[in-house]
């Protein structure tokens, strides 16, 4: 452990992580978190217990679907889901098949309205992306050597500057288990 008193850093990281989560609107999605750092080693660990995301939604619940020549036309009603919808469509049919006419209107070449209506958008991925963004904003910039642990309940990231040591990884795994067992 560092021979210096690092209480300021502990408190400051706690504050800035809270503020970043609030800014990104993910405070409610993270039930608990631990930040552990030893600048002398050096390593930095963030471990999070993830809360439940919004339940999944069908495309027909957030958009109007019509027949279009050679595919479907989608008119988005709830714009909050637009990024997730676009990502899903790109993954399934490729970027060339998805044409954005306006902010709310899309033409998808290929699948018919029925297929599009039954697609489900998974909010879990959106949650993970946002939570990860919060973690990267706080994580020390120079700690590029990283090791991640993730499951449905928890997410743990450890980073260091040079070589990752077994003992630090074990420490991260222990913390991960502790956060996952709620």
């Amino acid at each position, binding site marked *: 452990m560092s021979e210096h008193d*690092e209480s*300021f*850093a502990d408190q400051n990281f706690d504050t800035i992580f809270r503020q970043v989560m609030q800014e990104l609107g993910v405070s409610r999605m993270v039930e608990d978190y631990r930040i552990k750092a030893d*600048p002398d080693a*050096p390593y930095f660990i963030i471990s999070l217990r993830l809360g439940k995301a919004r339940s999944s939604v069908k495309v027909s619940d957030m958009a109007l679907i019509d027949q279009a020549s050679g595919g479907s036309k989608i008119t988005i009603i709830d714009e909050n889901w637009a990024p997730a919808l676009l990502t899903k469509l790109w993954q399934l049919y490729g970027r060339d098949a998805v044409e954005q006419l306006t902010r709310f209107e899309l033409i998808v070449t290929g699948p018919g309205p029925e297929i599009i209506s039954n697609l489900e958008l998974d909010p879990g991925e959106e949650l993970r992306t946002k939570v990860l963004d919060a973690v990267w*904003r706080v994580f020390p*910039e120079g700690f590029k050597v990283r090791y991640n642990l993730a499951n449905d309940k928890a997410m743990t990231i450890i980073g260091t500057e040079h070589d990752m040591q077994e003992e630090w990884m074990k420490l991260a795994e222990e913390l991960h288990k502790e956060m996952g067992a709620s």
Partner: protein
Amino acid sequence: MYEVLLYDGGVYKINELYELIEDVGGFVIQKTQVQVQITVTLAIPEEERPVIEEKSRELGGKLINVPLAGTEIAVVAPTLGRHHMPHPTCDIAEQLRRVGAITVVMGLARGKGRQTAQISADEKAVIEEYDAAVFVLGNFKDCILEHKVRLFEDIDIPVVAVCGPEIEELPSCEALVCGIGRKVERMRREEEIHKLDEVAQKVEEVIRSKRRELDEDPLFVHPAEIKDRVAELEAVQRSLRPAPIVLHLDGLRVKIPYEEWKDQIAAVEVYGRRLGDIASISDSRLGGSTLIRIKSRSEVESGQ
């Protein structure tokens, strides 16, 4: 010694103020007019302050102390990443501008990390063109004391270090302000504003002691005296940069290309002498600028 002040008032009869400044042997450094309001940064011999104060009152304006006016200060962060920028680096720069300094904010190319943090010779040379530098460091005491301190150990200008944890003493810097760590929002709370004031105060102290050092062997002329003459150059008048001439404690930065204009700058006449004889003129590391460092009276008289 010259004192730099800021006049804040209206344009009505402002010429009377300009004439008085000239009569007492002072200079106008900068004028900023917004409709009928005007702010004038002026340098006057300090014993003439009461006369200028009286005139300001007569014109209905205010005379404000700007202790850092006539200085250019670099605020340096380890990187330009969001981990170090824009808060609190920009807040500190803004605070220094409020007390009259011209500031630049810079991030190092490889300043991130702990053992891997480094500063290049080029970056050092750029920083040394300024009157003082403020280094904004982070949260970990271990990291600052063992590693980050190397970033400014060879820098020849005064350095004020700013960091989060309470540290009693830090080598290689003239002043230290603790209690400002990493931030993800503007420094708006009362205690944070006090911290910003503390940084400005430390920079003022550092600049004051540098001014005292310069006074031991005074400059041949005050930089403000040269400013007006250099401002007459065609390239300066054509320059669209917001402050084409910036005053330093011991010279000026003129934002016109060195190679193209060095001869004309050297030929400017100051009290019957060529500027080239009483100052060293060199290319700035920042492209398109020329640095003028005024020699001391003893250097000019001994013909060095």
